[in-house]
Structures are given as C-alpha cells and as structure tokens.
C-alpha cells in the first residue's frame, strides 16, 4: 500500500479547538494550523456550558502528490458537509458534533458538574491522492467544514439532517443528499447532483467543455445558474411543477418513440423540454418531480 496515511481524529490526538459558538456559525478556518502539533485539549472554563457548544476537531491531511488534482470522498449518515476551495495544497478538515434536531434535548448537568463535549470522531484515509473520510458511528451527528485545493474532485453524500454546500471548487463534483439541500456556489468543471427531498441550487461559473451536467431532485426545487455562453443540449423537466428560464432557448423535439402493435399506433410526447443553447453541446439535465425547475443565465 503506497503512501497510506491514516489519521484517526480522536480526542486529544489532534489539535482540538474548543470554541464556544453556535453550531451553525462555525469559527472561520485559521490560515494554516500546524499539522499534528500535539497540544493539550484546551478546556474552556465555563460555569454552565450550553448544549450547542462545539468541540471541533481540526486536522490537516496532505495529498501524496499535491501537484496532481486529488479527490475527496465523504459519506455521512447524519450531518452537514461544507466544502470550500482555496489555494492551499492540502486538506483541512474540521468536524464538530453539530446540532441534531432529532435528538433529545441535552439534559442539564447534575449540580456542581460541567459537561465535557465529546469529540465527533471521524477517520480520514489517503491513498494515491484519493482521500476518504468516514464516520465510525451511524447515530452521531457530524458537521464538517472542509477546505480543499480548488481543483479537487469531490464525491460527497449525506443521508440525514444537513445541507451539503460547495463553494469555489472547479473539478468533478458528484453530490447526493437524501434529506437535505445541495448548495453549490461558484463551482466549475462537471457537476452531477441529486437530492431526494431537498432542493438543488447551483451557480456554475465555468464548465469543462464536453462535460455533462445533471441536477435532479424528487421533491425539491432545482435552481441552476449557468454561464451565458454555455454550449449545451438542455433537457428540462418538472413532472408536477413548472419550468422557468431566461436563456435563449432553441426548442427541439425530443425522442418520440413510435410503437406499433397490430393496427394500434402510439406516439408519446413526454413533458421534457429539450433545447439547445449557443448551438448545442454536451447534455445538461435539470429535473424535479414535485418541485419547480429554474434555469438562469449568469448575470
């Protein structure tokens, strides 16, 4: 196994930051935390810690060949994933226990005792420029904030409870979320995104020529902004909702399979709107079953 790094983020092993802040306002990333600097976990003295306080774990993991674009795969059962592209060459991961609304309210500590927040616990493996983040426990909620080099391929998935958000990354993005939204800001490359019950919102600023894009949702709105000059074959469809766009849209006829059975002849015209923009190009699909489908031109 060539260059297998293995970092297990556990209490006290890595730089533990104990920053009291609301769960949805995680502290900004420090510019460059010293990797693997062993510091004693900072215990913040507080008379009555609040349940939402974070004990965020932060680790920095290098790619084995930073000169080549790496890839990062994250699969969560519960929790949110926020990824930001930066000009750094390694990956910084900060994981906090997050807020899980479905869990019971944290009990008040017994008199005279204070609560110690347990670390969220996750594991990162790197092998030949492919990084994989996994979580040991199915039930614990984990909110991740990840900083990656801007050209890192991402494969993110979450089942419950959180948004998956990606900003300033230009690469291959493959994102799926079961019960949360997907938000992509200023991304480029190729995108394949699916949310079952959440919305899919994407602002794609640069596309790789010939790369297909696909954004789908079962129950949420699909709202995608594409560069004005994009060459694409569009396929837009909402089964129960409406489709809106401000693109100059050359509507073309989709496939209309003709079926003959004896004397019976059927032509089916489906609800998809097919069209080309700027002369056509790779396939771009926006699809929702119950939600609205919106395709916007970048301003």
């Amino acid at each position: 196994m060539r260059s297998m790094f293995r970092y297990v983020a556990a209490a006290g092993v890595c730089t533990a930051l104990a920053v009291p802040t609301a769960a949805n306002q995680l502290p900004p990333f420090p510019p460059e935390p010293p990797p693997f600097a062993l510091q004693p976990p900072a215990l913040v003295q507080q008379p009555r810690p609040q349940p939402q306080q974070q004990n965020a774990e932060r680790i920095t993991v290098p790619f084995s060949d930073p000169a080549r674009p790496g890839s990062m795969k994250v699969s969560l059962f519960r929790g949110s994933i926020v990824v930001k592209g930066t000009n750094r060459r390694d990956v910084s991961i900060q994981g906090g226990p997050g807020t899980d609304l479905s869990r019971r309210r944290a009990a008040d500590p017994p008199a005279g005792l204070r609560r110690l927040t347990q670390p969220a616990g996750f594991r990162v493996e790197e092998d030949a420029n492919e990084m994989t983040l996994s979580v040991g426990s199915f039930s614990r909620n984990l909110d991740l904030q990840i900083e990656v080099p801007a050209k890192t391929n991402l494969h993110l998935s979450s089942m419950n409870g959180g948004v998956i958000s990606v900003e300033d990354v230009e690469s291959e993005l493959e994102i799926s979320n079961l019960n949360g939204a997907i938000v992509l800001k200023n991304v480029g490359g190729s995108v394949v995104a699916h949310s079952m019950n959440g919305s899919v919102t994407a602002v794609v600023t640069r596309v790789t020529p010939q790369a297909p894009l696909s954004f789908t949702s079962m129950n949420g709105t699909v709202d995608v902004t594409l560069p004005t000059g994009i060459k694409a074959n569009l396929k837009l469809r909402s089964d129960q909702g409406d489709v809106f766009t401000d693109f100059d849209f050359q509507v073309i006829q989709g496939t209309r399979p003709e079926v003959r059975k004896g004397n019976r002849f059927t032509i089916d015209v489906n609800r998809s709107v097919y069209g080309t923009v700027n002369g056509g190009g790779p396939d771009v699909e926006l699809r929702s079953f119950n939600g609205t489908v919106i395709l916007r031109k970048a301003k």
Partner: protein
Amino acid sequence: MQCETVHAQLADFLSHALTDAESEEVRLHLAGCRACRNEADGFAETWRMLGSIASPAPDSGRMRTRLTAIIDGFEHAIASAPAPGHRGRLAALFTQQSDHHLLRAASACALVAIGIAIGYYMVPLPGGSEGTRPTETSAEIVAMRGELRDLREMITLSLMQQQSASNRLKGVSWSGQIDRPSSEVVAALLDTLMHDPNVNVRLATIDALERFASQDIVRRGTIQAVDRQVSPLVQIALIDFMVKVHERESIGTLRRLSEDPKVNAAVRARAVWGLQQLG
C-alpha cells in the same frame, strides 16, 4: 526454546518457510511441549481447512462478456488502424484507460475521417478519365465510417465503466450518437440502469434506452430494473418508460408497485396512473 518464540514461528514452520535449523528447533520443542503441540495441531488443521475452501468464482458472466467486448473492440481497432505507426500509439492511448486520452484519440480519428471525407467530396471528379476512382472512394468512406462507429462504440463502452459519474454520464450520452449501435452498447446501458450507483446516471440511461424500446431485451431489462430501484425518481421514470413504449408485460410489476405500502407514495400513484394508461 521458549513457547512464545515457537508461537511466533508456527505459521512459518507449517508453511515450510523456516531454515532447516530453525525448523529442527521448533520440532524439538513441539516434541517436548504438549501445549505447543496442541496449538500446532490446531494450526495445521486450520491451515488444511483454509486450503479446502473453494476460491470464490469470478463475477458474473456478464462481466466477462463486457471485458471480452472491450478487448475485442480494442483489437479490432488496432487491426484496422491505417498505418503501423498509428498502431502502437493507439494501443498506448487505450491501455491507459484515461478519459482524456480516449477523447483525444476519438477526436483525432474523427478529424482525420472528416478531413478525408471532405477532401474527397471537394475534389471535382474528373469525368470518366479515372472511372474506377469514385467506387473505391465511396468504399473507403464506408469503411472509414464503420471504423469511426466502432471507435465511438468502444469509447462509449469504456466511458460507462469509469469511476467518475460525470464520465459515465458522458458515455450514456455518447451512446445516442452511434448509428445502429451493437448489442454490446445496449447491454452496457441496461447494466448501467441496473447497477450504476448514481441516480442521475441511471435517469439518463432510461432516456438513452428509448431508442431501443423495440428490442425485447430492453423491455425485459427495464421491467426487471423497476423492482431493483430504490430511487423513486428512477422508478417513476421507468413507469413512464413502460407507458411510453406501451409495455403490457409490465402490468404485473406496476400492480405490485401500486399495492406495496413500502413504496414511495408518489411512485404508487404513478404506478396506478400507468396501469390506467396500459389499460
């Protein structure tokens, strides 16, 4: 010799990986130590049983067919490559299995073919003086078109095997640009519909399969796929497909879906609608 040392060496001892001297030492110790002998016997038994476990059979025949298909396509392309210089380069490009190179090779071949085709069409035919030329030319063009199609097919099949969802999506979309694709392309699409981990890729596959709706294998495959799907979006797209191609054999599957309480409510409703449409 200590029992601990012997324990550490037992595995090597049993697999005859020790030197003669070490082996002899272990044997001596085993002769005198009942505990270690028991241990060694147990070990040997396990060793023997491990050997008797049949190694798992390689994956489905389908995998093998696909692999053969890719290899065949690859060999065919090499065999029909125009110049020996090209041959090596083509082989190098395709063995790298990289999308980048595949595309580069495809576009290069497409350009060459288009260039030659345009060249032949543009040159005015000198009337009668070279009477044999036009037929040769058109034969060459036909051959070249055939090669181009084979190449495209090979790239499509290869793209559908890639790790990245974006490339697989590209492969599915490329399948739409092949005239009269072979049954391998159809089989690969059906396989993608069944097994691809990505919802978007599976959805695109259903659209790509519409062209082949008249083939029995596609109709049967899509009916099978309905049962395997976990994504309601894909299930609904498949129900729409059944209705679209008027597949009455799917009625049983649709009825089962419409009555299964575990199935998503929207899918059940769609199945009921599908049943009405198929009458």
